[in-house]
C-alpha cells in the first residue's frame, strides 16, 4: 500500500508541475487539442497508481512528453498562423450582417439549438437582435448585437471619468502582499498608519484592498463589517 501512496504523491507533484508548465487556462477556454491532452494526461496518471507492476516512468514519461509538446506547439502556434490554425482551427462566422449562415453552421455541426443556447447564455433571447456571431476555436459563441440592442456606454452618455485600474488586495489574511503593494505604490508604513487610524492591527485584518487613488477597504478577521 505504501508503494501506491508514494506513487500517488509523486504523480500529484508531477501533475501540478505539468499543469503549471501548460499554463493558466480555464476549462472553458481550452482549445480542443489542449482539452484532449488534459484528459489523456489524467488517464495516463492513473495507470502507474493502479498497477504497481508497471514502472512509474511508464506514466511519467508520456505525461511530461505530452505537456512539453503542448507547450512547444503553442509556442510554434505563436510563431506561425498556419500552425495555429492546424492545432486550434479557426473561428467560424455563423451570423453575418444579421443573416444566419446555415452552410457555416452545418460545417461545424452547430445546430439551431446550440445557437439558441449559446445566445441565451449571453442574455440574448431574440435571435433578431444579433448582427454578427462567431463560433470561436474554443467552441464559445461571440456575439455582436445590432445597434439598437447594444448596451449604452459611458461614451454614448458622454460621461467623463478616469481610466483607473481596479483595487488590489494588499493584506490577505493578516499578511502583506508585496506584489500588489509595489503595483499600487503603497508602502508598509502607509498601510500601518492607515490601519492605526482605523484602530486595527495588520495581523487582525482579513482583507485590505487599496485602489490606485489610495481609497481603501478593510475587512477585519473577527467581524463582518467594512471599515
Amino acid at each position: 500500500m505504501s508503494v501506491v501512496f508514494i506513487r500517488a504523491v509523486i504523480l500529484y507533484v508531477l501533475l501540478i508541475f505539468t499543469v503549471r508548465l501548460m499554463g493558466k487556462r480555464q476549462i472553458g477556454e481550452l482549445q480542443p487539442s489542449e482539452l484532449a491532452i488534459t484528459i489523456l494526461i489524467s488517464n495516463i496518471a492513473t495507470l502507474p497508481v493502479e498497477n504497481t507492476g508497471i514502472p512509474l516512468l511508464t506514466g511519467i514519461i508520456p505525461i511530461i512528453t505530452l505537456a512539453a509538446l503542448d507547450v512547444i506547439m503553442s509556442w510554434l502556434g505563436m510563431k506561425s498562423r498556419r500552425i495555429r490554425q492546424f492545432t486550434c482551427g479557426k473561428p467560424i462566422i455563423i451570423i453575418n450582417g444579421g443573416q444566419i449562415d446555415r452552410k457555416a453552421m452545418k460545417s461545424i455541426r452547430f445546430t439551431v439549438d446550440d445557437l439558441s443556447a449559446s445566445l441565451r447564455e449571453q442574455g440574448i433571447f431574440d435571435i433578431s437582435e444579433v448582427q454578427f456571431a462567431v463560433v470561436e476555436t474554443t467552441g464559445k459563441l461571440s456575439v455582436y448585437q445590432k445597434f439598437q440592442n447594444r448596451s449604452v456606454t459611458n461614451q454614448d452618455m458622454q460621461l467623463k471619468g478616469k481610466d483607473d485600474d481596479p483595487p488590489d488586495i494588499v493584506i490577505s489574511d493578516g499578511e502583506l502582499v508585496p506584489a500588489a503593494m509595489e503595483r499600487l505604490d503603497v508602502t508598509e508604513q502607509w498601510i500601518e498608519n492607515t490601519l492605526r487610524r482605523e484602530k486595527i492591527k495588520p495581523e487582525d485584518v482579513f482583507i485590505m484592498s487599496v485602489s490606485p487613488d489610495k481609497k481603501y477597504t478593510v475587512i477585519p478577521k473577527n467581524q463582518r463589517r467594512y471599515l
Partner: protein
Amino acid sequence: MNRVVTAFLLIAVIIAYSTVSVFVIHRESAELTAITDSISEYNKNGDTANASAAAEELTEKWLSFEKKMSVFVSDERLGELSKAIAKIPPYITAANDELNAELENVRRQLWLVYRSELPVWYNIL
C-alpha cells in the same frame, strides 16, 4: 519563454534518457547472455564446478540487473526471467537435461527485454 525552454529541455532529457536506457539494457543483457553461454560451454565439457560458479555469478548479476531494469520493464517480464534464472543452479547440481533449454529461455527473455526497449516500428505500432 521559460516554459518553452523547459519543454525543450524536458524533451531532450527524455530522448537522452531513453537512448541511455537502451544502451544500458543492451550492455547488461549482453553480459548475462555471455554468462549463460559460458554455463552451456562448461556443462557441455562436464565441468560442473565452473558451471555452478558461473551460475552463481549469473544470479548475483541478475539481482543487480533486476533492480535497474524494474525502472524500465514491467514486473511481469522480470518475474519470468527471475524464475528462469532461479532454476539454473539446481539444474546444474542435479545434472538436469533441461538445463540447456532453460539457458536458452533466459537468453530469449533477455533478448525480448532488450528488444522491447528498441524504438523500432514493430514496437511502436
